[in-house]
């Protein structure tokens, strides 16, 4: 290959250079700012993770799989997956191959920033063409791949249902400018490269183009305007990128290392939270997933709109959206960039100003401590039923019966009323108050001498697991505990008549990752049928304590929708493992709803 122009420069590269310098500068400054917004401990953790071989490898793997191949999207919908990975991976390969080409044939031009991008314009083939044929082929191949993705993207604008999406967001004006310029980049590239296909070499795409459209492509007067148009399309896309949803492309590459470093949201708007907001591609997958969006209600209260409003600084809407959410976590389960909707909302709630703060320091827990206290013994179990179980006493009665049948030495911590576990206060964003409740409960639990703490409420279970740090005391949910009893032979389950469906409570499933234990128990007790959407995709019952503003009159549709999903296999009984789900479903269900403790109790002697 040889230079066509001694200078190796043409003014049409200027728009590209402007766009590139702007977007690179913006992203680098933004990334540095985000890192500095992390608190000291988090920043250290993040920087250490960047030099730890294990996390380096994980970062590279995750960025490759999520940002380029879009594995999660493939799992969701093949067309959607192909559309994204063809554009992302195809474009990435075009850039990489362009640079390799430049390195191989024009090593003296590598230092020119724009050269690999407009390589075909600046070079002419000579007798060594055949050596470059593989490059020409690959470049055309990946260009075709991107173009096929663009075609799908255009189809998706018109018919999103083909891509498995019922509802999506309306792009803003800038989003549209970004979108159309992105669509234009690649057809223009194809056209521009077709002009020079017989000069600088082409392959199966550009050479036939050059031959077929001789009238246009043969006229060299059209050549420079096309290269200009290509460069301008690139410039427009890169200049609007920071202000559009496409900011998710660079931000996600920062979010993944943040997450792999184990960071959590410490500030509602800065650091990790900000990285999540800008990583949101605004695709609206969370709209279809949100249990509140049933019957087209509350669509504008989904996570995608939370992120959008945080970007726009619309405080009123941020408050409404973050207070309404049920915190079921399904948006996070379906989100391909993994924006943590519930945590984001709790963070927004935590920056509220209250004229009156709760104060639990005056609560005298000595009587409760005395009622459970005993010498530490390895077999002793402490059972904490929690507030919600107090409203559904059948669960605690069943649990006590199970304990007795299995011959377990147990104490019932809140038989005559106790303290709240602290999770509801935590979900309202009142961290200080939650810490006080946790401290008090911890004191009682540690005085009990128990080695195992059994909880029958997933809401409690989550906070006990994540925030209590009870040294030497194992925290288990009653589903896990009963399975242990069965496996140890202390409890014998008898198979009964009638089919059952198991509802995965949000806090137990998505919240704590317990899916298998309850199913294993139920399979031993009878015939287990599955709901249409289960496990990570389970639908919130609508009773969640997560929502601060959603009244019960507005939750009926949510509950009915969740019930319809559960009874798709026509089970005789609905079994769940959460007192709140049980209570909520029982209001509207056409068949019995029971807790797994009751089921187990019924099937044992």
């Amino acid at each position, binding site marked *: 290959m040889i230079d066509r122009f001694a200078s190796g420069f043409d003014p049409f590269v200027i728009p590209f250079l402007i766009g590139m310098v702007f977007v690179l500068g913006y992203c680098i400054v933004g990334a540095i700012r985000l890192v500095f917004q992390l608190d000291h401990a988090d920043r250290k953790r993040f920087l250490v993770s960047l030099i730890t071989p294990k996390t380096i490898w994980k970062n590279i793997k995750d960025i490759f799989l999520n940002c380029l191949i879009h594995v999660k999207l493939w799992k969701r919908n093949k067309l959607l997956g192909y559309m994204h990975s063809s554009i992302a991976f195809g474009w990435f390969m075009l850039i990489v191959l362009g640079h390799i080409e430049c390195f191989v044939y024009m090593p003296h031009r590598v230092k020119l920033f724009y050269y690999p991008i407009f390589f075909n314009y600046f070079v002419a083939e000579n007798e060594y063409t055949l050596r470059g044929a593989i490059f020409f082929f690959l470049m055309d191949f990946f260009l075709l791949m991107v173009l096929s993705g663009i075609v799908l993207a255009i189809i998706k604008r018109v018919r999103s249902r083909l891509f498995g999406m019922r509802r999506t967001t309306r792009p803003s004006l800038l989003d549209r400018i970004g979108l159309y310029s992105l669509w234009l980049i690649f057809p223009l590239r194809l056209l521009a490269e077709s002009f020079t296909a017989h000069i600088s070499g082409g392959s199966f795409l550009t050479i036939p183009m050059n031959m077929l459209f001789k009238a246009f492509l043969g006229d060299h007067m059209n050549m420079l305007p096309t290269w200009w148009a290509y460069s301008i399309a690139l410039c427009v896309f890169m200049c609007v990128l920071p202000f559009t949803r496409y900011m998710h492309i660079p931000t996600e590459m920062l979010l993944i290392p943040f997450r792999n470093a184990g960071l959590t949201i410490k500030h509602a708007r800065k650091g990790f939270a900000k990285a999540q907001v800008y990583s949101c591609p605004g695709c609206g997958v969370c709209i279809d997933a949100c249990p509140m969006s049933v019957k087209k209600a509350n669509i504008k209260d989904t996570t995608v709109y939370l992120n959008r409003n945080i970007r726009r600084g619309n405080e009123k809407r941020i408050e409404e959206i973050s207070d309404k959410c049920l915190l079921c976590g399904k948006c996070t389960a379906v989100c391909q960039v993994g924006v943590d909707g519930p945590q984001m909302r709790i963070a927004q709630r935590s920056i*509220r*100003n*209250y*004229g*009156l*703060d*709760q*104060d*639990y320091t*005056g*609560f*005298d827990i000595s009587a409760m401590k005395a009622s459970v206290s005993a010498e530490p013994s390895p077999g002793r179990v402490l059972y904490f039923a929690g*507030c*919600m179980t*107090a*409203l559904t006493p059948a669960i605690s009665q069943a649990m006590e019966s199970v304990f007795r049948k299995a011959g377990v030495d147990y104490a019932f911590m809140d038989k005559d*009323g*106790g*303290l*709240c576990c*602290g999770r*509801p*206060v935590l979900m*309202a964003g*009142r961290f200080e108050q939650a810490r006080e*409740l946790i401290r008090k409960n911890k004191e009682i639990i540690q005085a009990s001498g128990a080695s195992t703490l059994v909880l029958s409420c997933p809401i409690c279970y989550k906070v006990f697991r994540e925030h209590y740090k009870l040294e030497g005391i194992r925290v288990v949910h009653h589903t896990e505990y009963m399975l242990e009893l069965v496996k140890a032979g202390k409890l014998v389950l008898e198979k009964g008549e009638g089919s059952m469906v198991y509802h995965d409570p949000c806090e137990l499933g998505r919240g704590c990752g317990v899916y298998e234990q309850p199913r294993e128990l139920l399979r031993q007790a009878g015939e287990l049928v599955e709901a249409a959407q289960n496990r990570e995709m389970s639908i919130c019952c609508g*009773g969640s*304590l997560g929502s*601060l*503003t*959603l*009244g*019960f*009159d507005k939750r009926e549709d949510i509950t009915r929708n969740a019930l319809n999903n559960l009874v798709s296999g026509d089970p005789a009984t609905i079994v769940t493992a959460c007192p709140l789900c049980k*209570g909520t479903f029982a209001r509207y269900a056409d068949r019995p709803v029971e807790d797994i403790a009751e089921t187990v109790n019924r099937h044992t002697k």
Partner: protein
Amino acid sequence: MDFGFSISPSSTINLDKVDFTLYDRLCEIEPDAKKCMACGSCSATCTAGPWTGMSVRKVILGIQRGKESEAEKMLKGCMLCGKCTMVCPRGINTRHLILSLCRIYGEGER
């Protein structure tokens, strides 16, 4: 002279002199506050009740009658567990009512 007993302080409330700003503001944010029929289901289920005498019924009644400091004392013990919301026969979102009250307390002074 100490008789070992005394006259209990008057519990008369002069509604003409009561400052209703807090209640009016609450009704603005959570109009359901007016729906309360003081049945006491919330008081019966309250987790904080045994600890501090918390009762949503009494809180609403208190601020309707200008007894804000009593309401404040009770509100401070609320653990937001939400049982009162579940049992309320009038479907009042009591948790939101409590949180709204906590927010607007002393709003004028701030």
